[in-house]
């Protein structure tokens, strides 16, 4: 997902009325795709998808097949699981980023999807930021040994860091929220396309 594109949400919901309701809520700001079953959802998974919202009553959700498929395909997306309020005691499967309890309000659904879509962006931005910071640190360390300064390169790097930090901080949002704080740190555990993206970048820069 790039800044200008709308994030893509895959809704996995077998009740057509609920699916339509959720789509209506999300459509103004997202490209929404709907899968009526777990197997349809698995088929529709691709790298364009940023956020999946899936109901627990669907067997591919409750047995963890959907997060496993996302993992297998290496898709960089976040998954919210919707738990029915009347589903009683359940074993909640792992591999999900957020949990929503039915009945959902429009604001709850939209806030969660927005948060998850931002985390996809955040992860990539943090990667870029940390790589710039360590590159500058390396440059400074070399300079203090060689006693030479490349002011242009340093200024350029400084500018890039400032703008990367601004993007990261925008995506971080207000970290006085515990949920945002923990969710952001949890992103660091996630093995992403980070290393691959870095290699690609170097290829194009050469």
């Amino acid at each position, binding site marked *: 997902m790039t800044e200008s594109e709308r994030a893509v949400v895959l809704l996995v919901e077998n009740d057509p009325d609920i699916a339509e309701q959720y789509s209506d809520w999300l459509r103004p700001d997202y490209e929404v795709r709907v899968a009526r079953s777990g197997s349809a959802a698995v088929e529709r998974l691709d790298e364009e998808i940023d956020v999946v919202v899936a109901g627990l009553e669907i067997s591919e959700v409750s047995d963890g097949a959907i997060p496993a498929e996302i993992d297998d395909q290496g898709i960089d997306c976040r998954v919210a699981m919707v738990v029915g309020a009347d589903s009683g005691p359940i074993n909640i499967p792992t591999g999900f980023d957020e949990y929503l309890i039915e009945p959902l309000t429009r604001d709850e659904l939209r806030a969660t999807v927005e948060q998850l879509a931002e985390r996809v962006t955040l992860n990539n931005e943090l990667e870029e930021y940390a790589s710039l910071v360590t590159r500058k640190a390396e440059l400074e360390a070399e300079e203090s040994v060689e006693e030479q300064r490349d002011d242009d390169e340093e200024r350029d790097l400084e500018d890039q860091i400032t703008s990367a930090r601004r993007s990261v901080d925008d995506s971080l949002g207000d970290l006085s929220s515990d949920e945002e*704080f923990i969710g952001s740190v949890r992103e660091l555990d996630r093995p992403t396309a980070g290393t691959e993206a870095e290699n690609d970048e170097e290829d194009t820069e050469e």
Partner: protein
Amino acid sequence: MSQTDDISNVLPDGVLSQLSPGTSVLLSGPPMSGKQSLALQLLAVGHETGDGVLCVTTKNSAVDVLAELETKVPTLRREEVGIIDCSGSSSRRTIEDVATMRVSSPGDLTGISIGAAKLLQRFTNQDISTVRHGLVSVSTLVKYLDLETVIKFLHIYTVRIRDTEGLGIFTIDTLTHDPRTINAVTSEFDGVIELRETDAGDREIRIRGFSGVDSRWRSYP
């Protein structure tokens, strides 16, 4: 109190009291230079004026950290202290009145953040609005994780401190790491307090990064 006076001698410009809420400071120096002691002292000084203390410890157990805090502030109100212990200490001893969260490894950053959020909530419930955050020491994180991950974590943690208007005091051991690591970690903080030992064996201190503060080395008893 004499401890407070010591601090004002150490930081003659009253640096820390002048720091705006949300600031994070890195305390750096070689091993045995008294980093941890000074860090805990800076955390404890705030306690005397009603700030909560929330400390992540990676090497020493929560019991040891509490003991050292209590030597700094004999009147420590234990219910206003929270410790996240990821030292792997086998001690199962629970500390009376002090909220302690155990995290299995210093590399478990999610565990640390969950612990920090829970402890901060506890302070909020007690109407403690200002919290001093300690992390002793960043060096252990670097040992367990790659540098870029540590930078990302420090960035998120210092933004958290900024957004909750706390004060951060983190330590790093300067001899354990290459200059690249020290430079990168330093860049995440608003300012640095450095400790060093002269050839004659005297300790010196220098404060960098804060405008209007003398950044020369001076003697530190």
